Protein backbone atom coordinates (compact mmCIF):
# COMPACT_ATOMS: atom_id res chain seq x y z
CA UNK A 1 0.00 0.00 0.00
CA UNK A 2 1.49 3.31 -1.11
CA UNK A 3 1.31 6.29 1.22
CA UNK A 4 2.70 8.86 -1.20
CA UNK A 5 3.52 8.67 -4.87
CA UNK A 6 5.02 11.87 -6.20
CA UNK A 7 6.07 12.34 -9.80
CA UNK A 8 7.84 15.31 -11.38
CA UNK A 9 7.00 17.64 -8.49
CA UNK A 10 8.30 21.20 -8.85
CA UNK A 11 7.78 24.22 -6.65
CA UNK A 12 9.18 27.75 -6.80
CA UNK A 13 8.75 30.77 -4.54
CA UNK A 14 8.33 33.56 -7.11
CA UNK A 15 11.01 32.57 -9.66
CA UNK A 16 13.25 30.86 -7.12
CA UNK A 17 12.91 27.11 -7.72
CA UNK A 18 13.01 25.28 -4.40
CA UNK A 19 11.86 21.78 -5.26
CA UNK A 20 12.87 20.48 -8.69
CA UNK A 21 11.43 17.48 -10.40
CA UNK A 22 11.06 15.26 -7.36
CA UNK A 23 9.90 11.66 -7.73
CA UNK A 24 9.15 9.80 -4.54
CA UNK A 25 7.35 6.67 -3.44
CA UNK A 26 6.69 5.98 0.23
CA UNK A 27 5.02 2.84 1.52
CA UNK A 28 2.47 3.08 4.32
CA UNK A 29 4.16 2.33 7.64
CA UNK A 30 7.59 3.63 6.65
CA UNK A 31 9.65 6.04 8.72
CA UNK A 32 11.91 8.32 6.79
CA UNK A 33 14.11 11.30 7.50
CA UNK A 34 14.73 14.06 4.99
CA UNK A 35 18.18 15.58 5.39
CA UNK A 36 20.27 18.07 3.47
CA UNK A 37 21.88 21.49 3.82
CA UNK A 38 20.02 24.74 4.48
CA UNK A 39 17.93 25.78 1.52
CA UNK A 40 17.90 22.31 -0.03
CA UNK A 41 14.07 22.32 -0.15
CA UNK A 42 13.38 19.93 2.74
CA UNK A 43 10.70 21.97 4.47
CA UNK A 44 9.08 22.86 1.15
CA UNK A 45 8.94 19.19 0.19
CA UNK A 46 7.29 18.47 3.55
CA UNK A 47 4.70 21.19 2.93
CA UNK A 48 4.03 19.73 -0.51
CA UNK A 49 3.59 16.25 0.98
CA UNK A 50 1.13 17.64 3.54
CA UNK A 51 -0.90 19.37 0.83
CA UNK A 52 -0.31 22.84 2.33
CA UNK A 53 1.57 23.87 -0.82
CA UNK A 54 0.35 22.75 -4.22
CA UNK A 55 2.95 21.54 -6.70
CA UNK A 56 3.36 23.89 -9.67
CA UNK A 57 4.23 20.91 -11.85
CA UNK A 58 3.83 17.20 -11.35
CA UNK A 59 1.46 15.56 -8.93
CA UNK A 60 1.36 13.96 -5.52
CA UNK A 61 -0.93 11.03 -4.83
CA UNK A 62 -1.64 10.36 -1.17
CA UNK A 63 -3.27 7.08 -0.19
CA UNK A 64 -4.44 6.43 -3.74
CA UNK A 65 -5.91 9.88 -4.36
CA UNK A 66 -4.38 13.10 -5.70
CA UNK A 67 -3.79 15.48 -2.78
CA UNK A 68 -5.81 18.16 -4.62
CA UNK A 69 -8.87 15.93 -4.55
CA UNK A 70 -8.82 15.24 -0.83
CA UNK A 71 -11.56 16.86 1.22
CA UNK A 72 -9.58 19.01 3.75
CA UNK A 73 -11.21 17.63 6.91
CA UNK A 74 -10.86 14.02 5.73
CA UNK A 75 -7.19 14.65 4.95
CA UNK A 76 -6.70 16.27 8.38
CA UNK A 77 -8.11 13.17 10.08
CA UNK A 78 -5.55 11.08 8.21
CA UNK A 79 -2.45 13.26 8.09
CA UNK A 80 -1.08 15.58 10.77
CA UNK A 81 1.76 18.09 10.60
CA UNK A 82 3.98 19.41 13.36
CA UNK A 83 5.40 22.66 11.95
CA UNK A 84 8.93 23.85 12.53
CA UNK A 85 8.18 26.91 14.59
CA UNK A 86 4.78 27.20 16.18
CA UNK A 87 4.27 30.73 17.45
CA UNK A 88 1.64 31.15 20.13
CA UNK A 89 -0.37 34.35 20.28
CA UNK A 90 -3.09 33.61 22.84
CA UNK A 91 -2.85 32.07 26.32
CA UNK A 92 -4.40 28.66 25.64
CA UNK A 93 -3.51 26.07 28.26
CA UNK A 94 -1.44 23.15 27.02
CA UNK A 95 -4.44 20.88 27.50
CA UNK A 96 -6.71 23.19 25.45
CA UNK A 97 -4.07 23.54 22.77
CA UNK A 98 -3.73 19.78 22.33
CA UNK A 99 -7.52 19.31 22.39
CA UNK A 100 -7.85 21.89 19.59
CA UNK A 101 -6.05 19.41 17.34
CA UNK A 102 -9.22 17.30 17.47
CA UNK A 103 -10.97 19.88 15.29
CA UNK A 104 -11.23 17.60 12.23
CA UNK A 105 -13.01 14.96 14.34
CA UNK A 106 -15.65 17.25 15.83
CA UNK A 107 -17.90 17.53 12.79
CA UNK A 108 -20.67 20.06 13.34
CA UNK A 109 -20.55 19.85 17.10
CA UNK A 110 -18.80 22.70 18.89
CA UNK A 111 -18.06 20.35 21.77
CA UNK A 112 -15.40 17.76 22.39
CA UNK A 113 -16.28 14.11 22.93
CA UNK A 114 -14.82 11.67 25.42
CA UNK A 115 -12.81 10.16 22.57
CA UNK A 116 -11.27 13.59 21.95
CA UNK A 117 -10.30 13.90 25.62
CA UNK A 118 -8.84 10.39 25.64
CA UNK A 119 -6.78 11.10 22.52
CA UNK A 120 -5.47 14.36 23.99
CA UNK A 121 -4.56 12.74 27.30
CA UNK A 122 -2.80 9.87 25.55
CA UNK A 123 -0.81 12.27 23.37
CA UNK A 124 0.21 14.38 26.38
CA UNK A 125 1.41 11.26 28.18
CA UNK A 126 3.22 9.94 25.12
CA UNK A 127 5.29 13.11 24.76
CA UNK A 128 5.88 13.49 28.49
CA UNK A 129 4.10 16.81 28.91
CA UNK A 130 1.02 15.68 30.85
CA UNK A 131 2.27 17.63 33.87
CA UNK A 132 2.11 20.84 31.84
CA UNK A 133 -1.58 20.45 30.90
CA UNK A 134 -2.78 23.41 32.96
CA UNK A 135 0.09 25.73 31.98
CA UNK A 136 -0.30 28.56 29.47
CA UNK A 137 1.42 27.86 26.15
CA UNK A 138 2.91 31.37 26.34
CA UNK A 139 5.07 30.27 29.28
CA UNK A 140 6.67 27.20 27.74
CA UNK A 141 10.37 26.80 27.11
CA UNK A 142 11.56 26.01 23.59
CA UNK A 143 11.82 22.30 24.31
CA UNK A 144 8.44 22.10 26.04
CA UNK A 145 6.85 23.97 23.16
CA UNK A 146 8.24 21.48 20.67
CA UNK A 147 6.90 18.52 22.61
CA UNK A 148 3.50 20.17 23.01
CA UNK A 149 3.32 20.76 19.25
CA UNK A 150 4.12 17.08 18.71
CA UNK A 151 1.48 16.11 21.28
CA UNK A 152 -1.09 18.10 19.30
CA UNK A 153 -0.09 16.35 16.07
CA UNK A 154 -0.41 12.94 17.76
CA UNK A 155 -3.77 13.87 19.29
CA UNK A 156 -5.06 14.58 15.81
CA UNK A 157 -5.04 10.78 15.50
CA UNK A 158 -3.27 10.54 12.17
CA UNK A 159 -2.12 7.53 10.17
CA UNK A 160 0.61 9.74 8.74
CA UNK A 161 2.79 12.20 10.62
CA UNK A 162 4.91 14.96 9.09
CA UNK A 163 7.41 16.75 11.31
CA UNK A 164 9.68 19.68 10.54
CA UNK A 165 12.79 19.57 12.73
CA UNK A 166 11.04 18.05 15.73
CA UNK A 167 14.23 17.87 17.80
CA UNK A 168 15.72 21.27 16.94
CA UNK A 169 15.51 22.79 20.41
CA UNK A 170 15.59 19.66 22.54
CA UNK A 171 18.41 18.58 24.84
CA UNK A 172 20.04 15.16 24.42
CA UNK A 173 17.71 13.29 26.73
CA UNK A 174 14.59 14.74 25.12
CA UNK A 175 15.92 14.22 21.60
CA UNK A 176 16.31 10.53 22.28
CA UNK A 177 12.97 10.35 24.09
CA UNK A 178 11.13 12.08 21.24
CA UNK A 179 12.74 10.04 18.47
CA UNK A 180 12.03 6.89 20.49
CA UNK A 181 8.40 7.91 20.87
CA UNK A 182 8.13 8.48 17.13
CA UNK A 183 9.74 5.14 16.35
CA UNK A 184 7.36 3.34 18.72
CA UNK A 185 4.42 5.13 17.17
CA UNK A 186 5.73 3.98 13.79
CA UNK A 187 6.37 0.38 14.78
CA UNK A 188 3.43 -0.27 17.09
CA UNK A 189 0.68 1.72 15.41
CA UNK A 190 1.97 1.52 11.85
CA UNK A 191 1.97 5.31 11.57
CA UNK A 192 3.90 6.54 8.55
CA UNK A 193 6.42 9.13 9.74
CA UNK A 194 8.35 11.62 7.61
CA UNK A 195 10.56 14.14 9.33
CA UNK A 196 12.98 16.84 8.33
CA UNK A 197 16.10 17.10 10.43
CA UNK A 198 19.58 18.57 10.44
CA UNK A 199 20.82 15.98 12.89
CA UNK A 200 22.37 13.25 10.76
CA UNK A 201 23.20 11.12 13.80
CA UNK A 202 19.62 11.07 15.04
CA UNK A 203 18.40 10.38 11.52
CA UNK A 204 20.85 7.52 11.09
CA UNK A 205 19.99 6.06 14.47
CA UNK A 206 16.18 6.17 14.22
CA UNK A 207 15.10 6.38 10.60
CA UNK A 208 15.36 3.22 8.48
CA UNK A 209 15.23 5.35 5.33
CA UNK A 210 16.99 8.58 4.49
CA UNK A 211 16.38 11.10 1.72
CA UNK A 212 19.32 13.37 1.01
CA UNK A 213 18.29 16.61 -0.67
CA UNK A 214 20.48 19.11 -2.47
CA UNK A 215 19.38 22.17 -4.44
CA UNK A 216 15.77 21.03 -4.62
CA UNK A 217 16.48 17.48 -5.75
CA UNK A 218 16.61 14.17 -3.96
CA UNK A 219 20.20 13.15 -4.63
CA UNK A 220 20.24 9.97 -2.56
CA UNK A 221 17.54 7.72 -1.14
CA UNK A 222 18.09 4.60 0.91
CA UNK A 223 19.45 3.12 4.14
CA UNK A 224 21.47 5.54 6.29
CA UNK A 225 24.56 3.31 6.12
CA UNK A 226 24.54 3.50 2.33
CA UNK A 227 23.81 7.19 2.02
CA UNK A 228 25.98 8.73 4.68
CA UNK A 229 29.29 8.44 2.85
CA UNK A 230 32.17 10.95 3.08
CA UNK A 231 32.09 11.72 -0.64
CA UNK A 232 28.36 12.40 -0.95
CA UNK A 233 28.32 14.48 2.23
CA UNK A 234 31.31 16.53 1.06
CA UNK A 235 29.58 17.22 -2.21
CA UNK A 236 26.25 18.19 -0.66
CA UNK A 237 27.34 19.96 2.51
CA UNK A 238 30.78 21.18 1.33
CA UNK A 239 32.05 19.81 4.63
CA UNK A 240 34.51 17.16 5.56
CA UNK A 241 33.26 14.50 7.93
CA UNK A 242 34.59 11.48 9.70
CA UNK A 243 32.21 8.55 9.69
CA UNK A 244 32.38 5.89 12.35
CA UNK A 245 30.31 2.80 13.05
CA UNK A 246 28.46 2.10 16.23
CA UNK A 247 28.89 -1.18 18.09
CA UNK A 248 26.44 -2.94 15.77
CA UNK A 249 28.95 -2.35 12.96
CA UNK A 250 26.27 -0.89 10.68
CA UNK A 251 24.75 2.32 12.05
CA UNK A 252 27.01 5.21 11.08
CA UNK A 253 27.77 8.24 13.18
CA UNK A 254 29.13 11.42 11.81
CA UNK A 255 31.69 13.83 13.14
CA UNK A 256 32.15 17.05 11.20
CA UNK A 257 35.81 18.03 10.78
CA UNK A 258 37.36 21.35 10.01
CA UNK A 259 37.38 22.42 6.43
CA UNK A 260 40.43 20.91 4.71
CA UNK A 261 41.72 23.17 1.99
Amino acid at each position, binding site marked *: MKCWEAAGVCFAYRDQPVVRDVDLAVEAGEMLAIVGPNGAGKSTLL*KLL*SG*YLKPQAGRIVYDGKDLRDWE*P*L*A*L*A*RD*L*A*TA*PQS*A*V*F*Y*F*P*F*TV*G*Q*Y*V*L*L*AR*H*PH*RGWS*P*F*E*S*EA*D*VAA*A*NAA*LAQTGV*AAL*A*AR*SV*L*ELSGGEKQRVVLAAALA*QGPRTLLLDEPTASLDLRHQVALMGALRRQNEQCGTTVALVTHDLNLAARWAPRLLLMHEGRIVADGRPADILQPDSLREVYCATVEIGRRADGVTPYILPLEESR
Partner: protein
Amino acid sequence: MTVQALTPRVLAAKLAPFALFLLAALLLGPAVGAVTVDPLAAWAHRHDLAGNLDASVFFTIRLPRVLLAALTGAALALAGAAFQALLRNPLAEPFTLGVSSGGAFGAALAIKLGLGATLLGFSPVMLAALAGSAAAAALVYWLARTRGALSSTLLTLAGVTISFFFAAEILLIFYLSDYTETHQMIRWMMGSLDVVFNLAMLRGSLASRAALSLMLLAYAGGLAALVLLAGKFNQLSLGPEIAASRGVHVRRAQRAGYLAASLVTGLAVSLAGPIGFVGLIVPHAVRFLVGPDHRVLLPASLMAGAGFLILCDAAARSLFGPVEIPVGVLTATIGGPFFLLLLLRAKRQGNI
Protein backbone atom coordinates in the same frame (compact mmCIF):
# COMPACT_ATOMS: atom_id res chain seq x y z
CA MET B 1 -8.20 13.53 33.70
CA THR B 2 -5.69 16.20 32.80
CA VAL B 3 -7.40 18.15 30.04
CA GLN B 4 -10.74 19.88 30.38
CA ALA B 5 -13.01 19.48 27.39
CA LEU B 6 -15.61 22.02 26.40
CA THR B 7 -18.95 20.34 27.08
CA PRO B 8 -22.41 21.94 26.99
CA ARG B 9 -22.35 22.09 30.78
CA VAL B 10 -18.95 23.81 30.94
CA LEU B 11 -20.04 26.30 28.28
CA ALA B 12 -23.27 27.10 30.13
CA ALA B 13 -21.43 27.56 33.41
CA LYS B 14 -18.94 29.93 31.82
CA LEU B 15 -21.56 31.98 29.97
CA ALA B 16 -24.07 32.23 32.84
CA PRO B 17 -22.40 35.20 34.62
CA PHE B 18 -22.28 37.13 31.34
CA ALA B 19 -25.96 36.44 30.68
CA LEU B 20 -26.82 37.69 34.17
CA PHE B 21 -24.73 40.82 33.62
CA LEU B 22 -26.51 41.56 30.34
CA LEU B 23 -29.91 40.90 31.91
CA ALA B 24 -29.14 43.28 34.78
CA ALA B 25 -28.00 45.97 32.32
CA LEU B 26 -31.13 45.49 30.21
CA LEU B 27 -33.34 45.97 33.27
CA LEU B 28 -31.39 48.90 34.70
CA GLY B 29 -30.69 50.76 31.43
CA PRO B 30 -34.19 51.96 30.54
CA ALA B 31 -34.94 53.05 34.12
CA VAL B 32 -32.18 55.63 34.56
CA GLY B 33 -31.52 58.96 32.86
CA ALA B 34 -32.40 62.62 33.28
CA VAL B 35 -35.83 61.51 34.47
CA THR B 36 -36.15 58.29 36.41
CA VAL B 37 -38.75 56.06 34.91
CA ASP B 38 -40.73 53.47 36.79
CA PRO B 39 -40.60 50.43 34.49
CA LEU B 40 -43.65 48.84 36.15
CA ALA B 41 -45.79 51.94 35.63
CA ALA B 42 -44.53 52.13 32.05
CA TRP B 43 -45.45 48.51 31.43
CA ALA B 44 -48.91 49.04 32.91
CA HIS B 45 -49.55 51.89 30.45
CA ARG B 46 -47.90 50.25 27.45
CA HIS B 47 -51.01 50.74 25.30
CA ASP B 48 -51.38 54.39 26.28
CA LEU B 49 -48.08 56.02 25.35
CA ALA B 50 -49.59 59.46 24.76
CA GLY B 51 -51.36 59.58 28.10
CA ASN B 52 -48.58 58.43 30.43
CA LEU B 53 -45.14 60.06 30.79
CA ASP B 54 -43.44 56.95 32.18
CA ALA B 55 -44.71 54.80 29.33
CA SER B 56 -43.93 57.30 26.60
CA VAL B 57 -40.34 57.94 27.80
CA PHE B 58 -39.75 54.26 28.41
CA PHE B 59 -41.03 52.91 25.11
CA THR B 60 -40.24 55.69 22.64
CA ILE B 61 -36.93 57.03 24.00
CA ARG B 62 -35.26 54.70 26.46
CA LEU B 63 -36.00 51.24 25.14
CA PRO B 64 -34.92 51.90 21.52
CA ARG B 65 -31.81 53.58 22.84
CA VAL B 66 -30.96 50.69 25.17
CA LEU B 67 -31.47 48.23 22.34
CA LEU B 68 -29.22 50.29 20.06
CA ALA B 69 -26.59 50.39 22.82
CA ALA B 70 -26.85 46.62 23.22
CA LEU B 71 -26.53 46.01 19.49
CA THR B 72 -23.59 48.42 19.13
CA GLY B 73 -21.73 47.07 22.14
CA ALA B 74 -22.27 43.48 21.05
CA ALA B 75 -21.09 44.23 17.52
CA LEU B 76 -17.95 46.11 18.56
CA ALA B 77 -16.88 43.58 21.19
CA LEU B 78 -17.52 40.61 18.94
CA ALA B 79 -15.81 42.21 15.94
CA GLY B 80 -12.86 43.14 18.16
CA ALA B 81 -12.43 39.54 19.32
CA ALA B 82 -12.76 38.32 15.73
CA PHE B 83 -10.17 40.77 14.36
CA GLN B 84 -7.77 39.82 17.15
CA ALA B 85 -8.01 36.19 16.08
CA LEU B 86 -7.92 36.92 12.34
CA LEU B 87 -4.91 39.22 12.58
CA ARG B 88 -3.33 37.13 15.36
CA ASN B 89 -2.70 40.41 17.11
CA PRO B 90 -4.09 41.02 20.59
CA LEU B 91 -3.94 44.77 19.93
CA ALA B 92 -6.26 44.61 16.94
CA GLU B 93 -9.72 46.11 17.33
CA PRO B 94 -12.70 46.75 15.06
CA PHE B 95 -11.18 49.99 13.81
CA THR B 96 -7.66 48.68 13.07
CA LEU B 97 -8.59 48.12 9.45
CA GLY B 98 -9.85 51.63 8.81
CA VAL B 99 -13.60 50.98 9.04
CA SER B 100 -14.17 53.80 11.53
CA SER B 101 -12.10 56.41 9.71
CA GLY B 102 -13.84 55.50 6.46
CA GLY B 103 -17.17 55.91 8.22
CA ALA B 104 -16.13 59.21 9.80
CA PHE B 105 -15.00 60.49 6.41
CA GLY B 106 -18.38 59.59 4.90
CA ALA B 107 -20.23 61.27 7.76
CA ALA B 108 -18.09 64.42 7.61
CA LEU B 109 -18.57 64.65 3.87
CA ALA B 110 -22.35 64.28 4.21
CA ILE B 111 -22.44 67.02 6.88
CA LYS B 112 -20.24 69.34 4.81
CA LEU B 113 -22.30 68.86 1.67
CA GLY B 114 -25.43 69.39 3.73
CA LEU B 115 -27.10 66.32 2.32
CA GLY B 116 -30.68 66.51 3.40
CA ALA B 117 -32.77 63.84 1.82
CA THR B 118 -33.47 60.82 3.96
CA LEU B 119 -33.71 57.47 2.29
CA LEU B 120 -36.40 55.17 3.66
CA GLY B 121 -36.06 56.82 7.05
CA PHE B 122 -32.28 56.59 7.27
CA SER B 123 -30.42 59.87 7.63
CA PRO B 124 -27.93 60.81 4.90
CA VAL B 125 -25.13 61.03 7.46
CA MET B 126 -25.76 57.44 8.47
CA LEU B 127 -25.87 56.21 4.91
CA ALA B 128 -22.70 58.11 4.00
CA ALA B 129 -20.96 56.67 7.06
CA LEU B 130 -22.04 53.17 6.05
CA ALA B 131 -20.75 53.73 2.52
CA GLY B 132 -17.46 55.12 3.85
CA SER B 133 -17.00 52.12 6.16
CA ALA B 134 -17.72 49.70 3.36
CA ALA B 135 -15.33 51.50 1.01
CA ALA B 136 -12.51 51.43 3.57
CA ALA B 137 -13.05 47.75 4.37
CA ALA B 138 -13.20 46.78 0.69
CA LEU B 139 -10.07 48.80 -0.11
CA VAL B 140 -8.05 47.24 2.72
CA TYR B 141 -9.25 43.75 1.79
CA TRP B 142 -8.36 44.29 -1.85
CA LEU B 143 -4.89 45.60 -0.95
CA ALA B 144 -4.12 42.64 1.33
CA ARG B 145 -5.52 39.98 -0.96
CA THR B 146 -3.00 37.39 -2.11
CA ARG B 147 -3.29 34.08 -3.85
CA GLY B 148 -3.16 32.13 -0.63
CA ALA B 149 -4.15 33.11 2.88
CA LEU B 150 -4.77 36.75 3.76
CA SER B 151 -1.60 38.19 5.20
CA SER B 152 -2.20 39.64 8.65
CA THR B 153 0.80 41.96 8.30
CA LEU B 154 -0.49 43.30 4.99
CA LEU B 155 -4.00 43.74 6.40
CA THR B 156 -2.76 45.64 9.42
CA LEU B 157 -0.42 47.88 7.42
CA ALA B 158 -3.04 48.59 4.77
CA GLY B 159 -5.64 49.32 7.47
CA VAL B 160 -3.40 51.70 9.37
CA THR B 161 -2.42 53.49 6.15
CA ILE B 162 -6.03 53.84 5.01
CA SER B 163 -6.92 55.17 8.47
CA PHE B 164 -4.26 57.86 8.21
CA PHE B 165 -5.37 58.75 4.70
CA PHE B 166 -9.00 59.22 5.72
CA ALA B 167 -7.94 61.08 8.87
CA ALA B 168 -6.09 63.58 6.67
CA GLU B 169 -9.11 64.01 4.40
CA ILE B 170 -11.31 64.57 7.45
CA LEU B 171 -8.96 67.34 8.58
CA LEU B 172 -9.22 68.84 5.11
CA ILE B 173 -13.01 68.84 5.36
CA PHE B 174 -12.74 70.41 8.86
CA TYR B 175 -10.54 73.12 7.43
CA LEU B 176 -13.05 73.92 4.71
CA SER B 177 -16.05 73.89 7.08
CA ASP B 178 -17.61 76.57 9.26
CA TYR B 179 -18.00 76.28 13.04
CA THR B 180 -21.43 74.73 13.02
CA GLU B 181 -20.46 72.04 10.57
CA THR B 182 -17.20 71.30 12.38
CA HIS B 183 -19.02 71.03 15.68
CA GLN B 184 -21.52 68.63 14.17
CA MET B 185 -18.69 66.50 12.76
CA ILE B 186 -16.75 66.38 16.01
CA ARG B 187 -19.92 65.53 17.88
CA TRP B 188 -20.53 62.63 15.47
CA MET B 189 -16.99 61.38 15.93
CA MET B 190 -17.37 61.21 19.71
CA GLY B 191 -19.98 58.54 19.21
CA SER B 192 -23.48 58.76 20.49
CA LEU B 193 -26.45 56.50 20.88
CA ASP B 194 -29.14 59.04 20.03
CA VAL B 195 -31.39 56.89 17.97
CA VAL B 196 -30.43 58.14 14.55
CA PHE B 197 -32.99 56.36 12.52
CA ASN B 198 -36.42 57.80 12.60
CA LEU B 199 -38.61 55.83 14.94
CA ALA B 200 -41.62 56.79 12.90
CA MET B 201 -40.21 54.18 10.56
CA LEU B 202 -41.74 51.53 12.76
CA ARG B 203 -45.18 52.87 12.04
CA GLY B 204 -44.16 54.28 8.67
CA SER B 205 -44.36 52.97 5.17
CA LEU B 206 -43.82 49.37 4.27
CA ALA B 207 -40.57 50.29 2.50
CA SER B 208 -39.07 51.97 5.53
CA ARG B 209 -40.10 49.13 7.79
CA ALA B 210 -38.51 46.75 5.31
CA ALA B 211 -35.32 48.82 5.31
CA LEU B 212 -35.16 48.72 9.10
CA SER B 213 -35.80 44.97 9.14
CA LEU B 214 -33.12 44.47 6.52
CA MET B 215 -30.63 46.38 8.63
CA LEU B 216 -31.48 44.40 11.75
CA LEU B 217 -31.29 41.20 9.74
CA ALA B 218 -27.81 42.10 8.45
CA TYR B 219 -26.78 42.85 12.02
CA ALA B 220 -28.15 39.55 13.32
CA GLY B 221 -26.64 37.62 10.43
CA GLY B 222 -23.19 39.15 10.97
CA LEU B 223 -23.25 38.50 14.72
CA ALA B 224 -24.49 34.93 14.30
CA ALA B 225 -21.88 34.19 11.62
CA LEU B 226 -19.09 35.36 13.91
CA VAL B 227 -20.26 33.19 16.82
CA LEU B 228 -20.68 30.18 14.51
CA LEU B 229 -17.14 30.66 13.18
CA ALA B 230 -15.72 30.31 16.71
CA GLY B 231 -14.20 26.85 16.13
CA LYS B 232 -12.45 28.09 13.00
CA PHE B 233 -11.24 31.25 14.75
CA ASN B 234 -9.56 28.95 17.30
CA GLN B 235 -7.59 27.29 14.50
CA LEU B 236 -6.89 30.55 12.62
CA SER B 237 -5.55 32.10 15.83
CA LEU B 238 -2.79 29.45 15.77
CA GLY B 239 -1.62 30.50 12.32
CA PRO B 240 -2.66 29.63 8.76
CA GLU B 241 -0.36 26.63 8.43
CA ILE B 242 -1.69 24.88 11.53
CA ALA B 243 -5.27 25.81 10.66
CA ALA B 244 -4.85 24.29 7.20
CA SER B 245 -3.33 21.12 8.65
CA ARG B 246 -6.47 20.71 10.77
CA GLY B 247 -8.69 20.78 7.70
CA VAL B 248 -9.78 24.44 7.85
CA HIS B 249 -10.23 26.05 4.44
CA VAL B 250 -8.12 29.02 5.52
CA ARG B 251 -8.90 31.54 2.82
CA ARG B 252 -12.62 30.86 2.93
CA ALA B 253 -12.76 31.05 6.74
CA GLN B 254 -10.72 34.27 6.78
CA ARG B 255 -12.93 35.82 4.13
CA ALA B 256 -16.13 34.91 6.00
CA GLY B 257 -14.75 36.22 9.30
CA TYR B 258 -13.41 39.42 7.80
CA LEU B 259 -16.66 40.10 5.95
CA ALA B 260 -18.92 39.46 8.96
CA ALA B 261 -16.72 41.48 11.35
CA SER B 262 -16.49 44.40 8.89
CA LEU B 263 -20.24 44.30 8.31
CA VAL B 264 -21.21 44.58 11.97
CA THR B 265 -18.48 47.17 12.61
CA GLY B 266 -19.70 49.26 9.67
CA LEU B 267 -23.30 49.09 10.91
CA ALA B 268 -22.23 50.01 14.44
CA VAL B 269 -20.15 52.97 13.22
CA SER B 270 -22.85 54.28 10.92
CA LEU B 271 -25.56 54.07 13.60
CA ALA B 272 -23.62 55.22 16.66
CA GLY B 273 -20.39 56.76 15.45
CA PRO B 274 -16.92 55.39 16.17
CA ILE B 275 -17.34 54.50 19.83
CA GLY B 276 -13.84 53.57 20.86
CA PHE B 277 -12.38 51.18 23.36
CA VAL B 278 -15.28 48.70 23.62
CA GLY B 279 -13.87 46.58 20.81
CA LEU B 280 -10.41 46.48 22.35
CA ILE B 281 -11.01 46.09 26.06
CA VAL B 282 -14.13 43.96 26.24
CA PRO B 283 -12.58 40.97 24.40
CA HIS B 284 -9.45 41.32 26.52
CA ALA B 285 -11.34 41.57 29.78
CA VAL B 286 -13.41 38.54 28.79
CA ARG B 287 -10.29 36.62 27.77
CA PHE B 288 -8.79 37.27 31.20
CA LEU B 289 -11.94 35.87 32.77
CA VAL B 290 -12.73 32.83 30.59
CA GLY B 291 -9.57 32.17 28.56
CA PRO B 292 -8.91 32.40 24.84
CA ASP B 293 -11.18 29.59 23.55
CA HIS B 294 -13.32 31.43 21.00
CA ARG B 295 -16.26 29.08 21.53
CA VAL B 296 -16.59 30.73 24.96
CA LEU B 297 -14.89 34.04 24.24
CA LEU B 298 -17.15 35.11 21.37
CA PRO B 299 -20.59 34.62 22.94
CA ALA B 300 -19.26 35.98 26.25
CA SER B 301 -17.82 39.07 24.50
CA LEU B 302 -21.14 39.62 22.74
CA MET B 303 -23.04 39.70 26.03
CA ALA B 304 -20.36 41.62 27.93
CA GLY B 305 -20.07 44.24 25.16
CA ALA B 306 -23.83 44.74 25.05
CA GLY B 307 -24.12 45.06 28.82
CA PHE B 308 -21.08 47.33 29.09
CA LEU B 309 -22.34 49.81 26.51
CA ILE B 310 -25.85 49.87 28.01
CA LEU B 311 -24.36 50.77 31.38
CA CYS B 312 -21.96 53.34 29.89
CA ASP B 313 -24.83 54.97 28.05
CA ALA B 314 -26.99 54.98 31.17
CA ALA B 315 -24.15 56.68 33.04
CA ALA B 316 -23.62 59.14 30.19
CA ARG B 317 -27.30 60.10 30.40
CA SER B 318 -27.56 60.42 34.17
CA LEU B 319 -24.17 61.43 35.64
CA PHE B 320 -24.32 65.13 34.78
CA GLY B 321 -28.02 65.24 33.86
CA PRO B 322 -29.66 66.94 32.14
CA VAL B 323 -26.39 67.39 30.24
CA GLU B 324 -25.41 64.25 28.41
CA ILE B 325 -21.76 63.21 28.02
CA PRO B 326 -20.78 61.58 24.71
CA VAL B 327 -20.81 57.87 25.38
CA GLY B 328 -17.52 57.38 23.52
CA VAL B 329 -15.81 59.57 26.12
CA LEU B 330 -17.33 57.53 28.89
CA THR B 331 -16.40 54.09 27.52
CA ALA B 332 -12.74 55.09 27.63
CA THR B 333 -13.09 56.82 31.01
CA ILE B 334 -14.74 53.82 32.66
CA GLY B 335 -13.08 51.13 30.57
CA GLY B 336 -9.51 52.39 30.91
CA PRO B 337 -9.05 52.04 34.68
CA PHE B 338 -11.08 48.82 34.75
CA PHE B 339 -8.86 47.36 32.06
CA LEU B 340 -5.70 48.39 33.91
CA LEU B 341 -6.98 46.58 37.01
CA LEU B 342 -7.50 43.41 34.99
CA LEU B 343 -4.07 43.88 33.46
CA LEU B 344 -2.45 44.11 36.87
CA ARG B 345 -4.32 41.00 38.01
CA ALA B 346 -3.23 39.11 34.90
CA LYS B 347 0.35 40.23 35.46
CA ARG B 348 0.30 38.96 39.04
CA GLN B 349 -1.05 35.61 37.87
CA GLY B 350 1.51 35.40 35.08
CA ASN B 351 -1.37 35.12 32.66
CA ILE B 352 -0.13 37.52 30.02
